[in-house]
């Protein structure tokens, strides 16, 4: 037997354990790499490139991805250490046997080190490959064409190296321990449990017997049991945070978008303006609008008579006439007094940028935004509400530009000759949140345009929608045939679908982790089967049914799972509450949804862990004993 042939043959002979280890390693490496690649694309990518979503939403994503990223890395580390610990722990006996047969220590160590290196290398290489594949699949499968770019290749060696080193460290530890064990000890199955308390004879009921065997075996495998509980707890923290946080954040961000666009709202405008407006809304999900569009073209002006006629139609709740244009705006700074030194400190600077400006009549808006601060006041025409992306790019501290303090709510914007004080920051998908709402009256004064260029109409949800739409179209046609009615439901749906697919992809990550954790649990059950095989064979020989053996192993699995769930979910809930965004949307349905997902994960893991137990229980007794 040549030096290299032994470890390789050994790995092939233990095909199941080897592939389990490689697959688990693959999954944890892949999920970590995928997360990093994907979050750079979506979360961080969006923030810097700003070509989709709005700043507020991508901040929510980034925060989540960052947090899940940290957790996934932790889980990956724990899983990796566990799985190499497991495979090496199972070899302790073989180690002793080979030593007993007279093989020198160094050589035995060499054999197992070669095995460890082979397994780790295979796992890490296929993990990196799978990570890139998952990233590619996720990007091309959903509506992320907007984010297609070459992946950050430098992440691959980073993740590879981190996990490789981790696996080596944790895999070498049990091997060193095993090397110290004398051959006699490695060969003897003798275990002490101490004495049970009391001298009274107290044989147990049948259920008690199962529980006793299960719990004492867990105790005997202490080091592995503690490790699997730590591993599964971390996994359940991750699951709770990502599932509950994810579901809540998804619902909340959907409702933000839904409210900003408004439901049951149609737009009426000149054909070209309507198309432009729809594209501005859909920019959120990756569309591009016409950059040279002339918003001030006289053709676009909405005739006053049309507004009057719309007001008169029964079944229309609100007529929201808007003047929309693109303009260059400038930051207006402010001062504050430092309470300690009484020195005057500047707040903000004089940054500039392009923004969509929307003039509205504050009393007649069809939307309800998620706002920090408040919306425009009808009496005060010098106010503005800005979108979250403007707030981020023009009103956040920028030490490099010498701006140490900045707070949009105490500053203002300048637009041509007019200045507005900012009273609110809203989340609005239009133009990716690069928007400012001002009074239409003041905007008309500033631009000299006396008409609106688009009208948003909110329909009474109780009214007969198609009849009402037909009536509106008729009126519009009668006034100016170049004008049309645009239904916004489709754009809204597109945006919501986009949000949904982003979250779905984020949910991929815990799924990956869940799968590797389930594999670890299978590995743990296999260790249990391995260590208790003699015991089970005796039980079977003395009249236990295969079912009894499965029950004992299932009870062990349940004890491990439930202690992990208790720790993991409570920690997860605390963390979720801590990092949750302001104004979360939590209904009882959402709570049921979250509980359902977690329960499904639990049941799925439990069933998977039973697989080796059932497979084992079916074996003939003498096969087990031999």
């Amino acid at each position, binding site marked *: 037997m040549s030096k290299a042939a032994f470890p390789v043959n050994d790995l092939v002979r233990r095909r199941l354990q080897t592939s389990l280890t490689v697959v688990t390693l693959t999954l944890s490496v892949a999920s970590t790499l995928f997360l990093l690649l994907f979050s750079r694309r979506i979360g961080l990518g969006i923030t810097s490139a700003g070509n989709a979503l709005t700043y507020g939403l991508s901040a929510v994503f980034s925060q989540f991805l960052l947090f899940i990223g940290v957790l996934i890395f932790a889980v990956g580390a724990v899983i990796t250490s566990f799985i190499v610990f497991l495979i090496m722990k199972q070899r302790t006996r073989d180690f002793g046997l080979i030593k007993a047969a007279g093989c020198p220590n160094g050589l035995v160590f060499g054999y197992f080190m070669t095995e460890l290196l082979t397994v780790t290398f295979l796992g890490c290489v296929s993990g990196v490959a799978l990570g890139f594949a998952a990233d590619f699949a996720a990007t091309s499968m959903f509506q992320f064409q907007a984010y297609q770019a070459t992946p950050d290749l430098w992440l691959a060696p980073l993740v590879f190296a981190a996990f490789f080193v981790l696996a080596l460290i944790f895999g070498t530890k049990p091997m060193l321990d095993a090397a110290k064990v004398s051959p006699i000890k490695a060969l003897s199955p003798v275990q002490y449990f101490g004495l049970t308390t009391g001298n009274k*004879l107290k*044989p147990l009921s049948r259920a008690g017997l199962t529980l006793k065997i299960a719990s004492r075996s867990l105790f005997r495998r202490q080091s592995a049991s503690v490790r699997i509980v730590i591993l599964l707890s971390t996994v359940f923290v991750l699951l709770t945070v990502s599932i509950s946080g994810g579901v809540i954040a998804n619902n909340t961000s959907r409702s933000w978008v839904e409210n900003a666009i408004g439901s049951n709202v149609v737009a009426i405008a000149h054909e070209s303006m309507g198309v432009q407006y729809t594209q501005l809304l859909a920019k959120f999900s990756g569309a591009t609008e016409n950059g040279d569009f002339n918003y001030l073209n006289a053709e676009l002006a909405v005739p006053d008579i049309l507004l009057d006629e719309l007001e008169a139609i029964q079944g229309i709740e609100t007529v929201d006439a808007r003047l929309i244009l693109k303009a260059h705006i400038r930051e207006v700074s402010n001062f504050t007094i430092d309470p300690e030194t009484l020195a005057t400190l500047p707040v903000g600077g004089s940054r500039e940028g392009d923004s969509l400006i929307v003039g509205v009549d504050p009393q007649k808006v069809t939307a309800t935004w998620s706002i920090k601060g408040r919306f425009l006041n009808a009496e005060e025409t010098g106010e503005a509400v800005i979108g979250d992306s403007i707030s981020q790019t023009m009103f956040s501290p920028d030490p490099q530009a010498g701006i140490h303090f900045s707070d949009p709510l105490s500053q203002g914007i300048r637009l041509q000759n007019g200045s507005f004080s900012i009273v609110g920051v809203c989340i609005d998908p239009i133009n990716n949140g690069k928007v400012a709402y001002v009074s239409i009256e003041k905007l008309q004064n500033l631009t000299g345009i006396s008409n609106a260029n688009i009208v948003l109409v909110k329909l009474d949800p109780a009214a007969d929608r198609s009849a009402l739409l037909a009536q509106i179209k008729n009126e519009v046609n009668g006034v100016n045939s170049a004008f049309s009615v645009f239904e916004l439901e489709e754009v809204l749906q597109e945006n919501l679908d986009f949000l949904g697919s982003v979250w779905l992809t984020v949910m991929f990550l815990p799924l990956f982790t869940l799968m590797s954790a389930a594999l670890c649990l299978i590995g743990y059950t296999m260790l249990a089967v391995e260590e208790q095989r003699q015991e089970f064979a005796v039980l079977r*020989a003395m009249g236990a049914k295969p079912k009894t053996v499965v029950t004992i192993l299932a009870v062990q699995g349940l004890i491990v799972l439930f202690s992990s769930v208790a720790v993991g979910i409570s920690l997860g809930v605390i963390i979720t509450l801590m990092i949750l965004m302001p104004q979360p949307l939590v209904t009882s349905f959402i709570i049921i949804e979250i509980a359902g997902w977690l329960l499904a994960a639990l049941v799925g893991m439990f069933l998977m862990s039973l697989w080796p137990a059932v497979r084992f229980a079916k074996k003939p007794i003498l096969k087990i004993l031999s």
Partner: protein
Amino acid sequence: MPLKTSDLVVATDSLNKAYQLGDVEVEVLKGITFKVARGEFVAICGPSGSGKTTLLNIISGIDRTTSGKIIVLGEDLTVQDENFLADFRCNHVGFVFQSYNLVSTLTVAENVAFPMEWSRKPEEEVETRVAELLETVGLQHRANHFPAQLSGGEQQRVAFARALANDPELILADEPTGNLDTKNGQKITQMLRTLKANGKTVIVATHDPELMQLADRTVCLEDGRIASLNE
């Protein structure tokens, strides 16, 4: 569940057992035909590797035949499924392994009790029976110890108590004194003598001359065949 009454406890007819080792088929038992009547004490002797353990395993329902007939306590074991065999072993056969085979995670008392718990005996009955059995084997003071804390002889006595727990009609013992010193061996021989006196059917695989003396009859195996039948 009393099995069919008959004067024959074990009856085999041209029983064969072969193991598949890779491409090679190893015949371990070759055409074994023998009968054991109710209340008989039979010793099975033969050199190591002659198939004694294999034969006991098949009689107890732990192992299955390759071909041939085996009827134990009126049941044709070749046609029964795993669950039936489990109940059969639990309630009607007491088996003492050569290597004791106690459950390491259970105490002495629990080791004796578990076959009774599987046969759904009421709790009080289990308690009194365990106490009684441990007294018979002289280990009542060790009830709450774990097997690893006992000597080989003590473990073997616990294994005996366990085999007798459900008061089985048939007791099988595989070289019960093989690993023990003379003193411990004599204790085991004494126990088997009591069983014989109580009219139990006992089949013992053994080389021990004292045990063979005790037997009504000795069956010698050689290379998987019955070489001779004495007395």
